[in-house]
């Protein structure tokens, strides 16, 4: 049973390693999907938002974590 629990934990950890990174990335994807699919915005514009958003999220979560660790 503990192996199944560890496998489940590993699987979850693969995608949910950092809560902030996960939630902001999912929110970004939802926004882009809303723009492209629901609001019929030019798809390439949505693609640009997705790409730049991901880069921004990456930098923000890294900088935030570095500051948090430096503060402690």
């Amino acid at each position: 049973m503990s192996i199944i629990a560890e496998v489940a934990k590993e699987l979850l950890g693969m995608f949910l390693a950092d809560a902030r990174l996960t939630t902001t990335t999912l929110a970004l994807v939802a926004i882009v999907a809303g723009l492209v699919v629901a609001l019929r915005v030019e798809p390439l514009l949505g693609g640009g938002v997705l790409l730049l958003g991901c880069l921004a999220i990456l930098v923000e979560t890294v900088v935030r974590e570095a500051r948090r660790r430096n503060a402690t």
Partner: protein
Amino acid sequence: MVTVAWSVAGPAIGAAFLASLVEVVEAFTIVLAVGTLRGWRPAALGTVTALAVLALMIVVLGPLLDSVPLHLLQFIIGVLLLLFGMGWLRKAILRAAGVIPLHDEAAIFASESEQLAEAASQQRTSLDWIAGLTAFKAVLLEGLEVVFIVIAVGAGRGLLWPAAAGALAACLAILAIGIIVHKPLAKVPENTLKFGVGVMLSAFGVFWTGEGLGIDWPGQDIALVIFAALFLGIGLVTASALRRPTADIAR
């Protein structure tokens, strides 16, 4: 016969190879600890059983993926790749900047050996069982990530076999090196590899998610290379900006 552009197949094979290299090194360290302390029989048994479970997962999941519409599959895998790849890249940047410590295979080897020795002193009757289980868990848990990466970078464009070949090549390479050196592979530039894999998986994630949403990327497959260059550039600049003067960034 279906032909696949190298601009897509190359990153898929490369990502599977490099990611597998990292994971296999981690699993190898624990299997080596088991083999050294308790003999190679339980180590090999645990490893082979875990590989069989992983193979079974691929056999079961593979046909299931064929029944999912392509755009939906690309979208789901793209989002998972984004979460997974950016998670790896985030950690690799923090390690490169010296904010969090590098992965130390020698320390992990020592820690696993200590745990097995402790188990030996407490529970003499089922030592081989414990050792085999330790090897099984290590290979299964590290292998899960390899299976996901192979499926994720391969499933969207019929690249499952090339990606699987990349992963297998990594396994064989580490096995061959491991047999020769017979100690933890502490000199593998693990964080550099993780950095590279994180970059590639994040690029794939943006690409697949976009395609899943119906976005036609300019330049088609070439866009992947541009995305990877952007993630790499941003990652390196961020790591450089955060780097502590005294940090150990040798790897």
